[in-house]
């Protein structure tokens, strides 16, 4: 009798330990799959996209610098190669500056910058992906995505963040020197697969950057982050980016993404 009881106890204990994780594993997609779908949702929606972006770079003592630009993006294939074209309106002294990126998975991007005051196009070689995007707290990776293969992912938990049901995904760079962060935790909306919040931890494990999707809207049925902020908690600086006049699938021509149009912005798209 006693031995039987013990055996039951042991089995039920074992079950109670393994069962939830068993169910969990069955019902949730794999962490790499969540990361992939999130990347598509954030950086690849539509065949192409046009948006006007207003950025406010805020210093610790509340001083600000403004960046205003139109961004054109075209996917060559979903999750693969992309073209970006950016035209700057502000700050006033950089008006007419244009910037072009050929983004390749698993390979360094190609970048070109047109400096209007010198009427000069310069290639910007293989710069570090952790570089700041136009002096803001967003890095190039925050704007155009980081290769999924560069991180290993782990699904920590699923939780309700505000009204959104989210996957909480932890990303650790496979090569620590390839990223500024030691690891990153993302709250990814189960429906839209957009990150609602991301916490960046430095190599000591201290939280230093915080990404927040402040406002999400559906544009042509595509959930889109309209307003996002990146706050650097260690320096007190922060950047707020607001996307306006967002359009998807407008039919951007391939020829826009050439040096010729860097010097002479396409009037059809840039006003």
């Amino acid at each position, binding site marked *: 009798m006693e031995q039987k009881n013990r055996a039951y106890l042991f089995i039920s204990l074992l079950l109670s330990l393994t069962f939830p994780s068993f169910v969990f594993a069955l019902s949730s997609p794999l962490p790499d799959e969540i990361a992939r779908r999130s990347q598509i949702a954030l950086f690849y929606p539509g065949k192409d996209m046009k948006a006007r972006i207003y950025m406010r770079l805020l210093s610790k003592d509340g*001083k600000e610098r403004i960046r205003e630009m139109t961004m054109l993006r075209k996917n060559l294939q979903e999750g693969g190669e992309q073209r970006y074209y950016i035209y700057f309106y502000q700050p006033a002294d950089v008006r007419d500056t244009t910037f072009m990126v050929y983004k390749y998975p698993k390979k360094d991007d190609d970048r070109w910058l047109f*400096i209007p*005051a010198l009427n000069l196009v310069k*290639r910007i070689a293989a710069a570090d992906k952790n570089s700041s995007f136009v002096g803001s707290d967003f890095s190039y990776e925050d704007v155009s995505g980081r290769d999924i293969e560069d991180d290993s992912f782990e699904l920590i938990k699923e939780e309700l963040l505000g009204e959104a049901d989210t996957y909480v995904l932890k990303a650790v760079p496979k090569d620590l020197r390839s990223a500024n962060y030691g690891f990153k935790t993302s709250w990814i909306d189960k429906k839209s697969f957009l990150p609602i919040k991301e916490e960046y931890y430095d190599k000591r494990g201290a939280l*230093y950057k915080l990404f927040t999707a402040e406002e999400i809207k559906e544009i042509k049925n595509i959930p889109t982050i309209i307003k996002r902020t990146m706050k650097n908690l260690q320096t007190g600086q922060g950047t707020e980016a607001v996307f306006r006049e967002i359009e998807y699938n407008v039919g951007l021509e391939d020829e826009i993404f050439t040096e010729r149009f860097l010097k002479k912005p396409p009037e059809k798209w840039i006003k």
Partner: protein
Amino acid sequence: MKAGVRSQKSGARRKVWILNLLNSERMRALRGRLHPALPVEGATQAPINWYRHMDRRDQSNILVQWSINHPWTTIILILFITILFGTQLRNAKTDTDPKNMLPPASKVRVDNDQVETWFSLHKDTIVLGITNRGGIINRESLDRIATITDEILKLKGVAAQDIISLTTSDNLVTDDGSITMRPILSDVPKTRRKDSIDELEILKRSIMSNPLLVDRLISKDMTTTAIYVPLEDGANGREIAGEIMGIVNRIKGGGMERYYLAGDPIARDTFGHDMFLQMALFSPIAGIIMMIALYLMFRNLTMIVANMTVAIISIIWAMGFLIWSGFTVHIMSSMIPVFLMAISTDNIHIFNEFSYRIREVGEKGPAIRETMRAVGRAVILSDLTTAAGFASLAIGPIVPVKVFGLFVAFGTLVVLLMSFTLIPAILSLIDEKRFISAQKINGKEKDKDSLLHRMGDISLAKRGIILIVGLGLLLVSIAGIFQIRVNNNMISWFKPGSDIRVADSVMNDRLGGTSVAYIVAISNKSDMMKQPETLRKLQALEDEIKSAPYVGKTLSIVDLIRHMNLVIHDNDPKFNSIPGSPEIIGQYLFLMGMSSRPRELDTLVDYPFEKANIVVMLKSWDASAIDGVIDKVKVFENRNSNLSFKVMPAGIAYFNKVWNDEVLYGMISGFIASLLLVLALLALDFYSIRWGLIAFIPLIFTIIVIYGSVGWIGKDFDMPISVLSTLSLGLAIDFSIHLIRRFQQRFKETGDLEGSLVWVVGRPGKGIVKNAILFALGFSVMIFSSLTPYITVGVFMGAIMLLSALATLLFLPPIIYLWRRSLL
């Protein structure tokens, strides 16, 4: 410690003198003087009546009487209060940051905070220098530098995002018409040996062609690099330096590299840390040496215990009160115990007199009362004068100086209180028989008296020569005062050969310099710093600053823009200049924002481009280095009347200079006020301006000779020396008060001027000499300290003791003799 020595000395002298006095027939005269209502004859013959009479008239004697009658109650009561104060010691917060010597609202602190906010600067930066005689740009060294940087990034307390090293800082180069902005060492060349040589050559060329890196991240001879590690607010520089050294030791392996840690936070926090350690090590040693000396003088353990107990109690009360009042223990208040130790030796006078008295009277009760009656007034006078002198340091504007002065004064009053309570109580517990027999053995050493007597003779016989020599010395010293070089260099507070000094000099040899100042250009219009005209002026200012001595490197937005201009134009040397249009400049600045470290740009220009920062690296922490820069700024301002910006200095080098100057001059002005007050008090003590002036001579002589020799030797006159010199307040006053009082009594008794003068040197002089030897001996151990300010304490203590004792014994008798007509 210093203050303690001072008061101890004076107190001890007083007591010794008083004891000597009481011992003699002159004592009776003294009693008569102090209590004219009492018949002098009756004093010795019927001491008991006499004292009763006194008790009714003199509150201090009521205290003495009560303490003798209730010794245990007294001791327990005092111990109880001491425990109360002692519990406060647990709450002690130490603060070794010299910044807090000035209030947060002081202009230089407000300015510095402001500049740090404008340009996202960190208050403190540690510099790890790495050298390799064979050249630092090789695969092994670079690998280690990369690994060390990675590890430093993991340390708590460092501002990881702003570490500047070969692996984190951007290099801007042009290559085949494209430009590259990325960390200098984003990848250490990993290719096999044959290829890597070429890659290294390319790397070398690209680093050395960037003027922004040379002298900052790489030495001209390519043997030295540095990792600049900014600290988060409140991080401890010494501790982080220790962790960095731990990383270095783990990673250095058998490499050829040498590692050097420098930077203000290390010096400051190491000094703060070592200061308390050295204090804890040397104070007890000094105490023990003094106890041994005391034993040899009095052969009685109880006395020694009593003496040391008074010192400890006054320290506990003063420090407990200080902490209870909410003050932190900082560099200056940490000196309070030393000063109090010195001041508390006042009690030697009581013991000395008691040792004579008890042999005369044979009974401890009356002996104590008689002792206190004889010595009491001099003890009160000299302690009150000393306390008033220190309290008047509070007249100055510098808070730590005020705190120091007031709490030394408080401690002095505690010593005074103990002289009338605890000391009599302990003496009343003494075993009189053993004490008397011990004193008899001790009484044999009379020879010294004759030596001093002879000195007294000589001081009178050769008074002309002595006074002329003294006057000559005084004049030479006054000339020396004009040679004084005011300088505060915290690095020089460490011994030559210490890690910090070596690191500092190696880094200053090879790179731009470890001391950093900011020269900030402030306009009131946004985008002003994008105007070519403004940038040209900024460049002119920077060039002017570069011409100042000790300036090893400067960095400004102009350097960045010129380099960008050059690189954009494929290194065509024509374009190593400021571009002609604000648009080009604006677009360059925009491009720089695309680097991996836009924050490095932020350290040179503020957000709205209204203000620009010229970073100045100095090869010396001497005040003259920053003074040279400020002079050049003035030259620039005079030459350019129509500037679009104002210029403001800031940064640690400038801050160090300002706080040191303010504390030093605050100390000196407080000290001058003290001297005047003491002069007035001395005149009051003696009811005579002339006698006051005479009593003042040893003090002023000591100070002038000390300052003069500092000037002649060429030692920097810095904050520790200015603090130390106030010690002479307590010592010299004590000596002269005792000598003069004893002389006046003796002269009144005998009417023999010359005899009295010789006697006063021989007898009370013995107390002075004992006191001087005791202190010089005790504090001489500090010569072995590893911190130069403590060595200074050791040397100064001896010098002040010797000088004020000699000045008192040699100069006062001839001067009194010469002035006899107007004095007597």
